[in-house]
């Protein structure tokens, strides 16, 4: 029986090539979108789940009560690490770390500057990355040891079997390789790790860390925790919550200690009121919905085209019923047909996805592949094919099989017409989704553009950053002098944070008008001479530093800080910071260092004579950046022979702040485009069908004197009306979701009627373009021919 069905299904497909192509192409595009999104979502969900015991791994965070508002920080103190280790028996291991930092690695004449982590000796017992050489328990015991990833080992030594070989770090210390791990997979938040250095090394070589041991207030570290097997977080949570409260210190008294499961780090990175409420998961959800919607849009095509063309199949249904077929046989037959079509579409979809994966991976920065060798994948895919076939095929199957054989064989009923209302409703659904996606894309791009056009408060063009190190720090003044001498560098300064970040926040001990118990999250940037000049920041009141020794008793705030501190007349007011009283001598205009979408961070700029960790310099106007960098590189090499010269353009860093929005914009643009394409494909098929059905009417009208444009209008107006209805439905829906989305930005574009108008007009134009081909073809046909065929 099924052979017979497949046969007739296949002959129907081959016999109506245009119709089959529209059906298969549309369905394949829909399935490809759904499959691509599914693979992507699966990849995002797979983050860190591959690690054994990943359900017992946590990072410690602090919920800090800032004047009633809960802020969640992932920086913690070393004292907290020790306290957790010794006081909480449910915890198996604790590893303190620097949270990741970059160092220079040197073997012979091979020099690299790359990111790794300095962390406690139990780290590899917690994060059980497969070890190629060495043992997880031993390799971080000795302070002067280093564990490399396979790629790093090969880059440095040309082989991964490098136990006991020596790596020179920061041109100062020799570390012995005690282990080699496999590269951390891309679907891991720890992907940045290229090597691991024992935390004891950091403690021995950086004296300030020793000083950070005794207070919960010194929050500059990351702590990872592994619970004992069988222990639930809920058992530990009440024990750690108030663990810092005993210490008499503003930070400690206001901090609740919490932990976040490793599997959630990637998707639930945003905290609201102390609870991991969202993050990338929101986009994952939205795009999952979009994937399903696009697939449904494609299914609607199948439903509409099949029911519209049912006249052609009605006779067959009648015959089959007359020779003994029951309704269930026919339903089964039509479902077999839709399964065949869906299966062919699925094969096309696999091909489409395979082609699209390379650009998609490049766009999203992921490494997604189709798991061809996974049996589970194929089983799931087959289930999806059947499910899709059921969705797409059910309505046609039930509709077609319901025909009364006597009537269809006599030709007394006009089949296909009766289903036209439901068909219209389905078209409106399709276009509502597509138009909503178009509106969303437009708004996302307008929001990005709006934020990009926002004045940043400093000049990011021609500005470069290089991370400092011991040699560069020692030779800073000579380096600066040489660079300025060349003429390619216009100005240079150092700061404790790069130009696109505020790395440290501190409380102020005292300021005029401070309320009892009030805390402030004041950004602190240590700067050296010419900082404001180099960044292009303008003073709005008071004066710049003279950059002399006495300036260490002065401070400059930005306007946001002054507003935060509620200072009416800030100049010459005295504040207390880290125990020292300093005078406000100037106010600088706000610069958007952290987020182009948020308000400027309240920040204080503190003068130091010693250079800080970020060298910031601006190229002179009109120089060729390529030549300039070569010249600058030579000078850096002179003062810093142990490291390769690395640099970043600040405008690149700044634009990276838009990367998530740009990604979302691009994805929604692509999916909106595909959704409207699939919808139009369906419309194209429907228009062809309608034109065919009305051939006689068109012929008669033409004979009676109708012009081509009148006929075009006649055939188009129904569809255009449907699209306009869709616009009316889509607009408030899109508005609702977009306003929710924009809530997360302080600085957001307002959604005016223009967006909806533009989207509606373009939807109508696309529709007209799609159906006009059929409409005009029908309208210019010779009426004699069409009337004779009746």
């Amino acid at each position, binding site marked *: 029986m099924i052979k017979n069905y497949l*046969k007739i299904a296949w002959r129907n497909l081959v016999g109506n090539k245009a119709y089959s192509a529209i059906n298969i192409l549309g369905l394949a595009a829909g399935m490809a979108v759904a499959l691509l999104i599914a693979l992507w979502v699966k990849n995002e969900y797979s983050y860190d789940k591959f690690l054994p015991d990943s359900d017992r791994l946590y990072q410690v965070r602090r919920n800090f009560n800032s004047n009633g508002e809960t802020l969640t920080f992932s920086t913690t103190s070393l004292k907290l690490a020790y306290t957790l280790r010794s006081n909480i028996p449910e915890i198996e291991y604790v590893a303190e770390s620097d949270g990741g930092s970059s160092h220079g690695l040197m073997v012979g004449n091979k020099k690299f500057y790359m990111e790794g982590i300095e962390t406690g000796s139990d780290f590899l017992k917690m994060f059980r990355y497969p070890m190629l050489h060495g043992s997880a328990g031993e390799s971080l015991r000795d302070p002067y040891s280093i564990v490399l990833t396979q790629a790093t080992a090969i880059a440095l030594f040309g082989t991964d079997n490098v136990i006991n070989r020596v790596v020179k770090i920061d041109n100062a210390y020799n570390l012995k390789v005690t282990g080699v791990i496999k590269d951390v997979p891309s679907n891991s938040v720890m992907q940045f790790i290229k090597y691991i250095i024992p935390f004891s090394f950091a403690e021995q070589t950086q004296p300030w860390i020793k000083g950070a041991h005794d207070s919960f207030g010194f929050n500059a570290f990351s702590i990872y925790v592994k619970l004992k097997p069988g222990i639930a977080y809920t058992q530990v949570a009440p024990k750690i919550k108030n663990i810092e409260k005993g210490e008499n210190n503003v930070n400690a008294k206001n901090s609740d200690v919490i932990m976040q499961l490793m599997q959630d780090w990637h998707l639930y990175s945003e905290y609201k009121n102390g609870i991991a409420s969202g993050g990338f998961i929101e986009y994952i959800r939205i795009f999952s919905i979009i994937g399903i919607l696009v697939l449904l849009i494609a299914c609607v095509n199948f439903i509409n085209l099949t029911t519209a063309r049912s006249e052609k199949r009605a006779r*067959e249904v009648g*015959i089959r019923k007359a020779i003994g077929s*029951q309704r269930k046989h026919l339903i089964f037959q039509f479902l077999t047909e839709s399964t065949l079509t869906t299966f062919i579409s699925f094969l096309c979809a696999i091909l489409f996805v395979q082609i699209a994966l390379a650009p998609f991976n490049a766009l999203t920065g992921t490494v997604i592949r189709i798991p061809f060798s996974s049996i589970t994948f194929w089983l799931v895919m087959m289930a999806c094919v059947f499910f899709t076939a059921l969705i797409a095929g059910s309505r046609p199957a039930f509709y077609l099989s319901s025909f009364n054989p006597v009537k269809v064989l006599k030709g007394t009923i006009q089949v296909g017409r009766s289903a036209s209302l439901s068909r219209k409703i389905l078209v409106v659904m399709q276009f509502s989704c597509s138009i909503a996606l178009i509106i969303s894309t437009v708004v996302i791009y307008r929001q990005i553009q709006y934020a990009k056009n926002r004045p940043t408060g400093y000049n990011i063009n021609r500005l470069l950053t290089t991370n400092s190190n011991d040699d560069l720090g020692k030779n800073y003044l000579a380096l600066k002098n040489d660079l300025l001498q060349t003429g390619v560098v216009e100005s240079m300064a150092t700061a404790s944070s790069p130009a696109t970040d505020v790395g440290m926040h501190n409380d102020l001990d005292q300021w005029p008008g401070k309320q009892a118990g009030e805390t402030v999250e004041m950004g602190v940037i240590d700067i050296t001479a010419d900082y404001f000049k180099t960044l292009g920041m303008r003073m709005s009141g008071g004066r710049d530093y003279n950059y002399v020794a006495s300036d260490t008793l002065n401070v400059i705030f930005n306007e946001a800080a002054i507003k935060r501190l509620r200072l009416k007349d800030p100049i010459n007011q005295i504040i207390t910071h880290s125990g020292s009283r300093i005078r406000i001598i100037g106010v600088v205009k706000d610069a958007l260092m952290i987020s182009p979408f948020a308000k400027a961070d309240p920040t204080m700029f503190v003068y130091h004579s010693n250079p800080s960790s970020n060298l910031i310099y601006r190229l002179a106007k009109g120089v060729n950046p390529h030549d300039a960098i070569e010249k600058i590189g030579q000078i850096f090499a002179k003062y810093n022979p142990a490291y390769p010269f690395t640099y970043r353009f600040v405008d690149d860093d700044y634009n990276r702040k838009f990367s998530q929005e740009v990604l979302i914009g691009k994805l929604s643009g692509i999916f909106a485009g595909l959704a409207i394409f699939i919808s139009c494909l369906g419309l194209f098929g429907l228009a062809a069908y309608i034109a065919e059905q009305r051939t006689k009417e068109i012929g008669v009208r033409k004979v009676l004197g109708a012009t081509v444009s009148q006929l075009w209008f006649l055939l188009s107006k129904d569809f255009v009306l449907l699209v306009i209805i869709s616009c009316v439905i889509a607009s408030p829906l899109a508005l609702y979701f977009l306003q929710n989305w924009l809530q997360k930005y302080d600085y957001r574009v307002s959604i005016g009627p223009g967006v909806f108008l533009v989207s509606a007009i373009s939807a109508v134009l696309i529709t007209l373009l799609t159906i006009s081909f059929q409409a005009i073809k029908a309208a210019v046909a010779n009426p004699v021919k069409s009337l004779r065929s009746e």
Partner: protein
Amino acid sequence: MLSLQHISKYYQVSGLKNFVLNDLSLEIDEGEFVSIMGPSGSGKSSLLNIIGMLDEPSEGYHYFAGQAVHQLKEKQRSALYKQYVGFVFQAYHLIDELTVYENIETPLIYQDFKGSERKAMVADILDRFNIVGKKDLFPAQLSGGQQQLVGIARALIAKPKLLLADEPTGNLNSKQGEEIMELFRKLNKEDGVTIIQVTHSEKNAEYGSRIINLLDGKIESSKQL
């Protein structure tokens, strides 16, 4: 074999009943060859469809092979139909996308015959109807007479007790029509198939054993030959 009692079929048009069949009663015995005649609109085809259980009467009692059809559910009716009835149409109504062989085979599929049995039965009937050479052709490649032959072969493949034919020769020329009628007579005489045909042609009607004339949904006359 079958009995219709006080059968009516009507359509409601703006409150008025428009009768197609009006209180019609009819008995047909096994082995009969009945020709139904009458002008257009007299209810011939409706009567045939009701006998063949493709359509339901609005009122009346319908017994077929000892069962009260008017009390059966659709599924049971369909089972009864499959077991006893073969249908032949004026417009042949072959499935365009299937070959001759597959068209004939289709009813067997619906009656759950095994593949090997189907093969044997189809081969047998192709042979009987002398159309073995045409088995892989599609309907569009056949003449009208040949198509009707396939239609009859398809109707007979499951060995029905009752063959219903709605103007089987209506689309054929007279020579082809004669051949079909001869075939019907042979089926009736030799194989004992009960045949009810609707026809416009006096000549064709006389192949039967009884002629029933319909007028305005009622039996006007019935003549045993």
